[in-house]
Each structure stands twice: as C-alpha cells, then as structure tokens.
C-alpha cells in the first residue's frame, strides 16, 4: 500500500491583474468569455486586485467570476488582502513566490538584452591587443601589422586588416572572421591557424570570410559579395 506523499508539481495558473482605474471588471470578463468560452471555463485564476480596492468591490468581483463559471482559487497582491482571502475561504498566494513566464521569445530579448558586440574605432596600432571576451568584436577602421585582435565570438573588420586576427579563442568552432580588406599576418579560428603565406593569393586584399570546417579542422576562405 502506498503512503500519501507531497510532491512539488507545477500547474499553470493565470493571474488576473485588476488595476483600480480599469474598465468595469464584470463587463470585461463577459467579453473575454464570449471571445473564448472554452478557455475561460478551464483556466484556474488568481485575482490580483490593487491596493485601493475596497473589500466590497473585491467581493463583487469574486461573485461575478463565480457567476461566469471561472475557477477562482485565490488572491494575491498586497498583503492587506490576505485577511480578506482567509475570510472568503480563498487561498492566499504570496506575490514574492511568483515566477513570471516569458510570453514569447521576443519579449525575453527586450527584457534581458544579451551583451552585444564590442565595437572599437580604429586604427588598431602595432603592439596593441584587443580582446572581446564572451562576445563579438567589430573594428571600424584599420588593423595595423603587429596588432592583435581577438574575440570569443565572431570578428568583423570594416577596414584594412593587416594584423593578427583570432575568433572563437575559447574554442567556439562556429566563430568566423569577416574582413573588408583582407591582408592579415595570421588568422586563427578556435585554435586552428594559418599564416599569411598560406592564404590563397586571389583572396589577398579582397572581402573575405573565414570559417572553420569541423570535419577536416581546416580553415575555409570565401569571398563576400
């Protein structure tokens, strides 16, 4: 015979945010039920009234939810509503324990911007090192002979590139190098490197893209438009 036990399960519960200055809640709920009746019947809802709502207003809202057949399971919001939840026999859900699920990929990008490329204005002179850690590197201008530019991500050089260039220096094999005028001393991708004497002659001074073929572990060179 199995013993009863408590398990942490996650259910999808919607929060109904109800600001004080919103349109009448009953009206709005009716419209939603007309639009998507099946959905509104199935969802579990937690009501989040604003601090300014009176107990009577909240009671009225709960009644209209009940009439429409929407499953209200509890209250959340300001802790002053907690007593009200107890009084009405509803659960109290602490707003501090909420994890808000991102609605879409797009919204996540806006809320948590990833670190963008490091943009450096050239010329990058001989003897100067530039390293873009955990990100791409963009150089506007030239990179002189004897300069070293490196990135964990891609490297773009919008100018004459005569120095040493390394992309994917922490081992990212999908990193690439893009140069408008390709005349480097050395190129390296994820540790695979090639000196200027091994670079095909037809690519010299051209617009070049350098990638890494993972199967052969060799650098691949291509012309860009």
């Amino acid at each position, binding site marked *: 015979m199995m013993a009863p036990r408590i398990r942490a399960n996650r259910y999808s519960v919607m929060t109904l945010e109800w600001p004080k200055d919103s349109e009448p809640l009953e009206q709005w709920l009716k419209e939603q039920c007309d639009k998507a009746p099946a959905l509104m019947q199935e969802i579990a809802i937690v009501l989040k009234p604003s601090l300014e709502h009176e107990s009577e207003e909240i009671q009225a809202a709960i009644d209209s939810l009940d009439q429409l057949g929407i499953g209200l399971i509890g209250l959340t919001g300001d802790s002053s509503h907690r007593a009200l939840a107890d009084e009405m026999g509803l659960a109290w859900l602490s707003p501090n324990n909420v994890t808000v699920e991102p609605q879409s990929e797009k919204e996540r990008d806006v809320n948590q911007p990833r670190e963008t490329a490091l943009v450096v204005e*050239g*010329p*990058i*002179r*001989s*003897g*100067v090192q530039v390293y873009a850690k955990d990100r791409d590197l963009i150089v506007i*201008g*030239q990179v*002189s*002979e*004897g*300069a070293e530019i490196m990135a964990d991500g891609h490297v773009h050089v919008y100018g*004459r590139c*005569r120095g040493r260039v390394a992309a994917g220096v922490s081992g990212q094999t999908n990193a690439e190098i893009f140069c408008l005028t390709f005349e480097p001393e050395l190129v390296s991708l994820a540790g695979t490197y090639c000196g200027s004497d091994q670079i095909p002659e037809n690519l010299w001074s051209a617009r070049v893209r350098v990638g890494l073929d993972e199967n052969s572990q060799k650098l691949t060179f291509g012309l860009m438009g």
Partner: protein
Amino acid sequence: MATVVTVTSGKGGVGKTTSSAAIAAGLAQAGHRTVVIDFDVGLRNLDLIMGVERRVVFDFVNVISGEATLNQALIQDKRLENLSILAASQTKDKDALTEEGVGQVLEQLAEMGFEYIVCDSPAGIERGATMALHFADHAVIVTNPEVSSVRDSDRILGILQSKSKRAKEGGKVHEHLLITRYDPARVDNGEMLSKEDVCDILAVKLIGVIPESKAVLKASNTGVPVILDDDADAGLAYGDAVARFLGEDRPMRFVTPKKQGLFSRILGGGD
C-alpha cells in the same frame, strides 16, 4: 596655455632631432615663443644641432632635481629671439626623468609665456620616449619611407593613444606625419615606399615630406637648423611642414624626381 608638441618615431636615426630643431625654429620664425627640450638624457644631441653645445651649463635633469632654476638652464637662441633650448644631461640616465618632475617643468615653461613646447623624444619605447609622449597635445611622427621605420611609427602611435595623459583622460593626441629622407627617384624605381604607401599604412595626416638632402648633414655639422637654410630644398620643405602644422594649406614640393639636364648628366652633376 602652452601647446606641447612631441617629435617622435620609435626607430632611431630617422631625423627626430633634426626635425625637432627645424620645427622649433620654424614656430619661432612664425612669431611664436617656443622652447625645444631634449628628452634624450644620456645621449644629448639637440644642443649640437642647435649650435649651442658650448653654452650648456645646466640641463633638463638639473632643473628636475632642483639643482638649477629653469632660467639658469634655458639657453636663448642667438638667431631667433623667440626660441629657447633646454638641453639634456650627458651624464645622467633616463631614470632621472620623473612624471612629476617633467610635468612641473612643462608647467613652469607655460607660466613663463612659451606658446609651444617642442619635445625631442629619444628612440625606443622606454622611459625617455614615454615621458616625452606623456604630456603631448600634438605628436609629430617622423618616418623614413622604409618598412621597419613605418612599423615602429605605428607602434609609437599605439602607445601615444593609450599611455599619454590626454588618452588616459579620454581625449586624443593630435597626430601629424612627417616623412623624412625621401628620395623621389628611388620611389619611382620602386626601391623606396612612396608617401602614399606610408600614409596608407599609418592612416595619419601628412604635414610634410622632407627630401633626402646634403644640406641636412651640413646643417647638423655647423649647428644651424636646416629650416634657416633658404637655399636648401630640405629647409624649404620643413618651412612648408611648419606652415601646414599651423593650419596653412600648401602644396607638396620636392616629391617628384628632378629632371636632369643634358649638361648635368654629362658632367655628372645633380645633388
């Protein structure tokens, strides 16, 4: 407010001291109160080029260490009343140059009413050179048209834009390129980099091309800045360079090979 102009190159023997003397004399000729300082402590040369070697009693290091006042150490040029010279010590080494000491001397010179302070940097990227660069508002990069000189100039430009006071405070040192010992005939033959090649590699505004000239050696040996020699093409080219530095627009001269006449070819003349 005095403007500090540092003449530098990285590589030795390209003409920094000759150019410092010529630029300082040119600025003084243009009516600006100018002082030229030799930062090459231990290997002083500027006093020779300026023809004041016998008048050096106290030097730059004496002033920094408080053994002499600036007035005692400054040597007034006899040809140009706007020009003064501060010689380097021959007995000390470059460690005598401290950032604080150099800064104080430059400040005092500005208070004395000098408009331009020309710093003649030593070769290399060690203490003397970095001290000369540290306080620069403008840098004149002297380069010969050959690859190693150009490479070293590029390195110095990198140091300039990372280690100078202006760069550290988020500003930028104004860069000017001066190509010296230029031989247009050899450029045409492909034996020497052209001025376009040099500008392309360094990406700095060109303020002058000084032709290879016997007048430069003669000027050094006689202690007269070559810019004061109106008969020499190198002197005229330095004059143009200073004018361009001061914002004037002048066409480049002496950048195409001289046409040798029939007689000079037969008689083996030319310069």
